[in-house]
């Protein structure tokens, strides 16, 4: 087992929490929010038309992009109260970005819960030119900056929220194997 890759449990609210902030990169709240919990706030990603926001309603606050959402997360966590539990749901890149923001805001790892959901896509760090390539669906991808065909190693950095990409045909240029679509 490769243990640089974190393991994720199914989503569930933590009964010891007094308030719950659920941030997802998907357009709907996760299943499994039980009625018995109070003080639940859900952030989703959704827009009503090109550039048009969807208004918050019923404890659900949509953002037009994960970028907009994460940009506001630090501010929101800066005014948190004791007992808050924070949940991030989405791609590995998204949930670890959210994790790093929460840690920087002063939360303890035990107050943070991460759940991988949505399409199996990865953020890939180009080892050569340090570009981040977003939403990569398969284990070989071309770096949009330095143009290297990158093999995505099964090595994950929580700090960068990214997998390591290394030129796949460095030894014999052009010798690029067929890409395999991610299934996890």
């Amino acid at each position, binding site marked *: 087992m490769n*243990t*640089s890759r974190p393991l994720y449990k199914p989503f569930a609210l933590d009964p010891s929490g007094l308030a719950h902030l659920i941030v997802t990169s998907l357009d709907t709240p996760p299943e499994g929010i039980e009625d018995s919990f109070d003080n639940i706030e859900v952030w989703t990603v959704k827009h009503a038309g090109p550039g048009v926001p969807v208004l918050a309603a019923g404890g659900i606050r949509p953002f037009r992009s994960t970028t907009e959402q994460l940009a506001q997360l630090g501010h929101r966590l800066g005014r948190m109260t004791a007992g808050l539990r924070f949940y991030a749901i989405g791609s590995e890149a998204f949930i670890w970005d959210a994790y790093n923001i929460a840690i920087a805001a002063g939360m303890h790892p035990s107050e943070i819960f991460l759940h991988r959901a949505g399409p199996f896509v990865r953020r890939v760090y180009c*080892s*050569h030119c340090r570009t981040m390539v977003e939403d990569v669906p398969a284990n070989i991808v071309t770096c949009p900056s330095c143009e290297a065909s990158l093999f995505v190693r099964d090595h*994950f950095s*929580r700090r960068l929220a990214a997998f390591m990409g*290394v030129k796949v045909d*460095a030894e*014999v*240029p052009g010798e690029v194997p067929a890409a395999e679509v991610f299934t996890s």
Partner: protein
Amino acid sequence: MKLSLKPQETYRDDYTFSNSDEAILRFPFPFPEDGYMYSVNMEPHVRGGATPVYDKVFDVDEHYIGDMADRAITLDQDPLRCQVLPHMETAEWDTLELLMESLANDYPEHFSLTKNGDKWHWINRPLEIDQTFTFGRKETLPYDPFEYITRQMQGDFSLQDQRDNNLYMDGGMVTSQADWSLNFDVGMSFHEWHGPVPLAHQAGVFDRALQYLLRLQYGKPVRRLNWTMTANPRLDTSPENYPLWGPEKAAITPENVGHRMCLRVELQTLHRLPRSNAILFSIRGYLIRLEELVKVKKWAVRMHRVIRDLHPQIAEYKGLPRYRQYVVDYFAPFDDGRTLNSGIAAEQDSI
């Protein structure tokens, strides 16, 4: 024995690096048996033992000047090969103290350290450095303390912070690595940075190694040997520059494998640091061309058996498959089927 240093050699472009007969005989050959598998092969780092590179706390050899020049080139091109997270400053000074004291004690003809309270005077004769500074005041040095001293010591280094019952790689000087990236790995926990290593996770090697290292005591360093193979005597086999050195692997042929191919051995030592409680991990690399290695009969025979019988996943991880058969074929004529003694000693006094 007095240490004499060679003039500057190169580890890139024309690759003038070579080992003297003395350097060949003191090479830390990593295979005590005819086969190889991952294990927690750590032992106390005490002076003396199966290879002369164990005689000093930090081993300096004839390649010192060339090693340091190559590090300077790599850092000039990519300063992020040296990174230390801000909370590790005490560990930086711990490192500087340990290295300066060890070098001055073990090689007084080359290095000297004089202390007058916190006013220190450091002389590094091979690199023509004469530095006075105030211990604990980094503005009195031309670089931050960890970078300052590791620009003057062979081998890579990483700094491990110990917290939450784990070790975190929160700093390093990494310019001669076997295909891993400090910029990618910095901040990772012990199991995270070992993530890509095959087989060993299942065997529990890292769980046991971590438990062992968490209990590492000040003044009782430990060591192990690790190895890989490198096409040409190149120090900078980094992921960052794989597009530069990758083609050199593909250029290995049965005709040039003996000259170009190198066995690369790491003497890894781990030292608990006194003030920070961090661990300094020294990864001291040694290169030897296969045509140099075969001058020691026992090693030539053993290399044939180890590489021939190596587990495919380990060969894959170490990047060997492209030229593995050439290496096996190169050593095969030396293997007359004799029984070899256990242990890594050369068992010959001259070449």
